[in-house]
């Protein structure tokens, strides 16, 4: 090969890398984010502020946690509808424990309650783990499809949280000052959001760099092949649903901190936000495909749109329509991409 040939092939390799980058789901999502920011801030200059960013990120936090778990579940070829109800149940159980066992009440200040909060967090996560174990048991033992199995636990979790709370929020100290520890007017990141980001990064590394993540993709891609390669598919799926449940429990604590109370309905419908984030992020409901960065950006877009629409004065009901359009667009882009790849 001559030098000019080499240079040419290097150039075409670089071109290929560039086209790959341009059609990459995450690149598209970043582009959409930038576009949304430009549109909203030109319609409403106040949109471009630390306060708005703080609001968006605070909303993002709880859904990001369950969307991260949902990413694993969807890549494995399943779905977890129970995460929204688990937020409510874990928040209620945790609030109940803190109020009735640990004596946390309205008079307590954030700093004094840190021990109780830690125990509350553990309780919350434990409740999530229990829901996850139940999902895995139904799916593995009785071969119930994940959609139905998690729909059942969703109903049960909602029922239990209403029973335990008698339908009313269990309040304790109303302001633990954790969600807004840093001045929201100048800093978009609260401590709680920083914790969420750390969790997302760690769990994301496990998805893309570890055997645990690899097996999740393998099972979603071809569960027969995964089993034939010696993977214990049932045991792995148990771990995946437990992870999803545990993160929902953590999200339950996050929402509790935000509301200052455990409320049975506090997570209702959040599972759909999470699924939307995962799908917008480029995952396939058929399994085997998905990226953590995509999910994170998907959730961010979801809340940017919602808060942008409210700020420019669009009636809140439109929010649902816009989210629906976003999901449809994401799936359409995905289908086009995979078609291109096949004919290329």
């Amino acid at each position, binding site marked *: 090969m001559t030098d000019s040939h080499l240079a040419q092939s290097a150039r075409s390799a670089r071109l290929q890398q560039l086209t790959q980058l341009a059609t990459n789901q995450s690149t598209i999502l970043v582009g959409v984010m930038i576009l949304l920011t430009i549109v909203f801030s030109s319609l409403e200059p106040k949109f471009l502020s630390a306060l708005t960013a703080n609001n968006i990120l605070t909303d993002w936090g709880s859904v990001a946690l369950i969307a991260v778990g949902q990413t694993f579940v969807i890549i494995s070829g399943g779905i977890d509808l129970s995460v929204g109800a688990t937020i409510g149940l874990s928040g209620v159980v945790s609030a109940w424990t803190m109020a009735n066992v640990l004596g946390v009440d309205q008079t307590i200040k954030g700093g004094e309650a840190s021990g109780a909060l830690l125990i509350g967090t553990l309780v919350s996560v434990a409740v999530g783990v229990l829901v996850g174990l139940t999902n895995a048991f139904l799916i593995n033992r009785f071969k119930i499809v994940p959609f139905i199995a998690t729909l059942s636990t969703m109903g049960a979790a909602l029922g239990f949280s209403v029973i335990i709370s008698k339908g009313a929020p269990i309040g304790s100290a109303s302001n633990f000052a954790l969600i807004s520890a840093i001045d929201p007017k100048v800093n978009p990141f609260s401590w709680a959001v920083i914790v969420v980001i750390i969790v997302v990064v760690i769990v994301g590394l496990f998805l893309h*760099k*570890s055997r645990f993540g*690899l097996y999740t*993709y*393998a099972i979603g891609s071809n569960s027969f*092949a995964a089993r034939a390669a*010696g993977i214990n598919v049932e045991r792995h799926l148990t771990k995946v649903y437990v992870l999803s449940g545990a993160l929902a429990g953590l999200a339950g604590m996050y929402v509790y901190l935000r509301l200052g109370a455990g409320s049975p309905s506090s997570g209702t419908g959040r599972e759909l936000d999470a699924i939307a984030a995962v799908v917008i992020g480029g995952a396939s409901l058929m399994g085997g*495909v998905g990226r953590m960065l995509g999910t994170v950006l998907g959730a961010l877009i979801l809340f940017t749109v919602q808060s942008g629409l409210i700020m420019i004065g669009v009636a809140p009901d439109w929010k649902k329509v816009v989210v629906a359009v976003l999901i449809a667009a994401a799936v359409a882009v995905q289908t086009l991409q995979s078609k291109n790849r096949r004919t290329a």
Partner: protein
Amino acid sequence: MSGDVIYEVKNVSKRYGSVVALDGASLKLHAGEVLGLVGDNGAGKSTLVKVLSGAHKPDGGQIFLDGVEQSWSSPRQALDAGIETLYQDSGLAPHLTVSQNVFLGREKLVRGPLGALGFLASKAMETEAHADLERVGIAVPSSSRSVSQLSGGQRQAVAIGRAVAWARKVIILDEPTNHLGARQAGEVLHVIQAAKSKGLGVIFISHTLPHVLEVTDRIVVLRLGKIVKDAPTAEFTSDSLIGTITGSIQTIKLDGD
């Protein structure tokens, strides 16, 4: 010449609902022997493969490895015992890369605490997978490519390369020359010969009878889940093999019933 019996099934049967896929089949595989397993579509070949690989539990019958009775409860146990299987289809995970497929279930981890957490040594696996496949002699593009982007023949090459790389005792190849061109199919026959000369027992399944006649030492013919003939390859002609498979040549019942 062939050595001791390494793998044996006695009287195995398997039904899928009302379909009897295997009906009291028995066979012996010797070390350093290539055994051809032939039969019409639906004869039960792939079912027997899945019983031998631990993917399916037989309804009845016994399995012996090196004379020790085994009851595989999962493919993992058979793999750990040195038995590798290439399945007729769906043996690979299409969304994973070539090297991820080659190493699936046997990943290399990075050293240190991250390795303890299950973090993968992807680069090392890519390099090794590439070398494994090169040994098979069928060119596969970069081992960091996802399998869904390979041609049917390239996928088949990956599956063969994986089986050959890991097999220690027995290698079961269910229609390995499917999707392959003439030259690549020839390579596969070489790979089979190489495995045989290393002392492995090879079970080779194919509808391409010239290949079977060329590469095997012994041929077992399955018809409707029953083994109707088990004889040295030298005793078959092309015509008698076809006749035995289709049933136009009557066979003596082996079980004496």
